[in-house]
């Protein structure tokens, strides 16, 4: 149990799917009925975490249990970066995946969690290839972009997807020495960089996250090469969560068919309130959290 094949395997089965942030059983049920492949159990969605300020922590276990009781699909939950006791608690609650997330307040400024020490798999955020590979070498079995959560603005997620893609493309044609230098610069094992160069992609499933508000946003991330998407505030902060959830699921399944994305986008009502990322103060940028 808890072998890497089993940890990475669940992420493989989530591909082509949408993982939705939910804060209660009712929302979780709505997500499942809309065709979400998993739910992320939270105390508050990122847009509210931003608004409320203060320290954002792991959810109340009772809330996670209620959500788990309501659905048959996998339940994920977030712990703070470096907070391995929150992760232990989540594992004891038998969540299906843990997101060591920058959306919550960082608990350890120097270390991320040693994810090899757990049987439950982890997903972690990244802005670039180095960050993705550091998390994988710590044991993450799934990667997602950080994007800029709670903004309804896709610009940072796109930046992170493109950065990872370009850095992977840059490994192509590199000699042994350059690969070793690159591994050194990224502070990861050479063998891991060699593997990425050989595969031409990350060695684990890679989802988009942070700022997806519309079916077209979700399809954009898919066309840029992501394996699936996380939608945080985008669904339950919109005027018609049920329709938006269905539409984003449809757009991800049919991401390269503009006609279907058009049909999915029609008459959806108001998207979530959005933010210009440029107006955020540095400390308001969640994507800067983590090392």
């Amino acid at each position, binding site marked *: *149990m*808890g*072998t890497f*094949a*089993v940890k990475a*395997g*669940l992420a*493989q*089965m*989530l*591909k*082509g*799917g949408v993982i939705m942030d939910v804060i209660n059983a009712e929302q979780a049920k709505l997500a*499942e*009925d*809309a*065709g*979400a*492949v*998993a739910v992320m159990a939270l105390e508050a969605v990122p847009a509210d975490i931003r608004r409320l300020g203060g320290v954002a922590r792991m959810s109340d276990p009772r809330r996670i249990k209620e959500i788990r009781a309501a659905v*048959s*699909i*996998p339940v994920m939950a977030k712990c703070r970066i470096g907070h391995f006791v929150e992760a232990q608690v989540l*594992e004891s609650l*038998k*969540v*299906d*995946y843990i997101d060591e997330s920058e959306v919550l307040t960082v608990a350890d400024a120097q270390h991320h969690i040693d994810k090899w020490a757990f*049987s*439950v*798999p982890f997903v972690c955020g990244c802005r670039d290839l180095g960050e993705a590979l550091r998390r994988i070498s710590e044991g993450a079995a799934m990667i997602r972009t950080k994007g800029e959560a709670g903004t309804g603005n896709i610009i940072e997620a796109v930046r992170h997807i493109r950065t990872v893609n370009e850095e992977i493309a840059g490994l192509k044609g590199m000699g042994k020495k350059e690969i070793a230098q690159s591994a050194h610069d990224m502070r990861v094992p050479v063998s891991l960089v060699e593997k990425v160069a050989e595969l031409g992609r990350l060695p684990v499933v890679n989802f988009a996250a942070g700022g997806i508000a519309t079916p077209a946003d979700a399809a954009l991330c898919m066309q840029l090469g992501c394996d699936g998407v996380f939608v945080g505030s985008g669904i339950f902060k919109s005027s018609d969560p049920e329709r938006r959830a269905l539409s984003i*699921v*449809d757009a991800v*399944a*049919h991401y390269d*068919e503009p006609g279907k994305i058009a049909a999915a986008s029609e008459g959806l009502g108001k998207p979530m309130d959005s933010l210009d990322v440029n107006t955020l103060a540095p400390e308001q940028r969640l994507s800067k959290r983590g090392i």
Partner: protein
Amino acid sequence: MAGAERMKRIGVLSLQGGVEEHINALLSASAKCAIPAQIVEVRTQEDAEGLDGIILPGGESTAISRLMERENLFPSVLKIRKIFGTCAGAIMLARKVEGAVIGQRFLSLMDIAASRNAYGSQLSSFEARLTTVFGTINGVFIRAPKITPMGKDCQPMAFHGEEVVAAYQKKGDRHFLATSFHPELTTTKFHEFFLKL
């Protein structure tokens, strides 16, 4: 493309789940047993036309079922001559499903009973050596269902200890193959068998 018409057309339902893994396994299987196959990613009714067989991959059966319904794919998939379902795909094939979500639709073609998430959460997912009709293989079980053959013409194809983890049924000229684990991750034996049907 003169030869292309005579090639077998095998679809992989590509709405959600471990699609690429099945395509790769099919490609290797096709090379290994020298059966040329055209592999079709199936997302719409048009994609499902004229297929000799289809694979229903692992994923979330709730999501796959709903997306199939949205595309009105049930009528076309129900007609396909041979169908191979892994994990969620096995649930889609099963005549009886335990733990289904209210309103969830299935193909209900094969005489097996499937129990969703029968082993428990992801913490109970596992890898194990399996005894199969093709020899011993490594099997990966991810939040797997349990499957039970119902009736004699449904043959066990693999065992984990005493438990049946793969089954095959021939119904007239139709063939159904179901595994509760993910052969596409570790072996091409089941794909070779499916291609030969």
